[in-house]
C-alpha cells in the first residue's frame, strides 16, 4: 500500500504558486488575444467579400481540425526552420493558443450574430445606418448576450489547454510540477496537487458562468 506524503511538497509551495500565476497570466493573455482574433475571423465569415470569407474559413478550419499539441510543436520547432524567425517558447505558446482559441471563438461569434433576427439589421438600415453601425449598435450588443456563455466555456477549456505549453518548457503550473517531481520522486502527490489547483481555480469560475447565464437571460 502506497503511503501518501504531502508534507514534502510544502517546501515547494512558492514554485507551485509561481506556476499557478504563470498559468493564469498565460490564460488571460490567450483569452484576450483569442477574442480579438475570433471577433475578426467571425465577422470576416459574415463579410460580403468572398476572399475575406475564404481566408477566415481556412484559418478557422486549420486550427480547429489539427491537435493543439501538434500546433504548439509546429510553431516552436517547424516555423523557425521554414522562415528563419526564432520564436521564444513563451511567444510560440501564447501565439498558438491564441490562434487555436480564436478559431473556436470565431465560430461562437459568427453563430451569435446570425442567430439575431435579420429584421433587426433591416430596421437599423432603414433608419439610414451604415452596415458597420448596424453591426456595432444593433446586432453585436444583442448577439453578445447569446455569446457570453459559450465564450466563457471556451475560455475555461483554454485555461486547461495552457498545461500543454509545458512541452515547450514554458514554466507554467504543470512544468513546475514536472520540476518538483524530478526533485522529489513524488509524482503521485505532485500531480494530485496540480489537479486540485486546476480544479479549485475552475470550479468557482464555472459557477460564475452558470449564474451569468441566468442573469443574461433576464436582462435586456
Amino acid at each position, binding site marked *: 500500500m502506497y503511503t501518501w506524503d504531502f508534507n514534502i511538497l510544502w517546501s515547494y509551495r512558492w514554485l507551485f504558486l509561481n506556476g499557478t500565476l504563470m498559468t493564469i497570466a498565460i490564460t488571460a493573455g490567450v483569452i484576450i488575444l483569442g477574442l480579438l482574433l475570433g471577433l475578426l475571423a467571425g465577422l470576416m465569415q459574415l463579410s460580403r467579400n468572398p476572399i475575406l470569407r475564404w481566408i477566415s474559413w481556412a484559418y478557422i478550419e486549420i486550427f480547429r481540425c489539427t491537435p493543439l499539441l501538434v500546433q504548439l510543436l509546429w510553431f516552436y520547432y517547424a516555423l523557425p526552420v521554414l522562415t528563419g524567425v526564432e520564436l521564444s517558447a513563451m511567444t510560440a505558446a501564447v501565439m498558438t493558443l491564441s490562434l487555436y482559441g480564436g478559431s473556436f471563438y470565431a465560430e461562437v461569434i459568427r453563430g451569435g450574430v446570425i442567430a439575431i433576427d435579420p429584421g433587426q439589421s433591416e*430596421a437599423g438600415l*432603414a433608419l*439610414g*445606418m451604415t452596415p458597420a453601425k448596424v453591426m456595432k449598435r*444593433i446586432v453585436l450588443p444583442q448577439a453578445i*448576450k447569446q455569446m457570453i456563455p459559450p465564450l466563457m466555456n471556451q475560455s475555461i477549456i483554454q485555461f486547461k489547454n495552457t498545461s500543454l505549453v509545458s512541452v515547450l518548457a514554458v514554466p507554467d503550473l504543470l512544468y513546475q510540477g514536472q520540476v518538483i517531481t524530478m526533485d522529489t520522486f513524488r509524482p503521485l502527490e505532485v500531480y494530485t496537487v496540480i489537479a486540485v489547483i486546476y480544479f479549485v481555480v475552475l470550479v468557482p469560475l464555472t459557477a460564475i458562468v452558470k449564474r451569468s447565464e441566468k442573469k443574461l437571460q433576464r436582462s*435586456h
Partner: protein
Amino acid sequence: MTGTVTPDNTKIEITNLKKQFGSNIVLRDINVKVDAGSVVALIGPSGSGKSTLLRCMNLLVIPNGGRIRIGHHTFVFDDGSKMPRAKDQAHFRSNTGMVFQHFNLFPHKTVLQNVMEGPLVVKRMPKAQAAQLARTLLGKVGLADKADTYPDRLSGGQKQRVAIARALAMEPEVMLFDEATSALDPELVAEVLGVMRDLAAEGMTMIIVTHEMAFAREVADKVIFLRDGVIVEEGPARELIDNPKQEATRAFLSHFHTRND
C-alpha cells in the same frame, strides 16, 4: 417640406423597375408616380411583389433595373452596374421611414432610445435634442408614458406605434408601411390605423402595403393592384375598390370586407 407646388408635384417616381431573385422574376416593369402628400395603397395576393416593390423604395432590396426617385434623390439601376455604395444606400434610406410587419424594435433599448437611435447615430443630433424629439413623437403616437419601458413590456399595437415614432424621428419625406397591422391581434389594429390616419391627414406621403381594404378605401388617394409582379390596375381608391375594372382585381377583392359599416 416646403409648400411650394411645382408643376410636377411627384414625390416618388419609379420607372421601368425590375427585380428578380435568381430565375424568379418578382417585379417585371413597374412604373409608379406618387404625388407629394398623397397616400398610395399597394394591394395584391401574397407573392404579387408588393412587399418587394416597397422594399425597393428604400433599397432593402436592390432592383435589377429601372430608376427610383424620391424627392431629390435618384438611383438608377441596371443589370451590369455595381451595387450602390453602402454609404449612398444609407443616405438614401435616411430619407424614407419604414414600418415593418413585425415591428423590429430594438429589444436592448428602451422605447425612448429606440426612437432616438436614428437621429443620434445617423444625423449625429445632440443627445438632449434627440431625446426631446423622441418624447414629442412618443406623445404624438400616444405613448409618452412608455418612454422608459423596454419593448418586451408592450402590446403589439404599442410596439408598432413606437416603430412609427422611430421612423418619423428621421423626419423622412416618405413613410413606407409593410403590412403594418398584419401581425396584430384584431383588437389592436385600430390604434395603429388611427396613427396612420393622423399622419395621412397631416400631409405625409405614404406608401402602404396592406390587406385592410376598408382602411385603404377610406385613407388612400390611390390604390395599386399588383399580381405576379405586374401592375394590373390602379386608380382612385374608392373607384378601384368599389368598381374594379379588371376581372383579376374583382376576384381578389371578393375575399375582403371593403367597408367599415
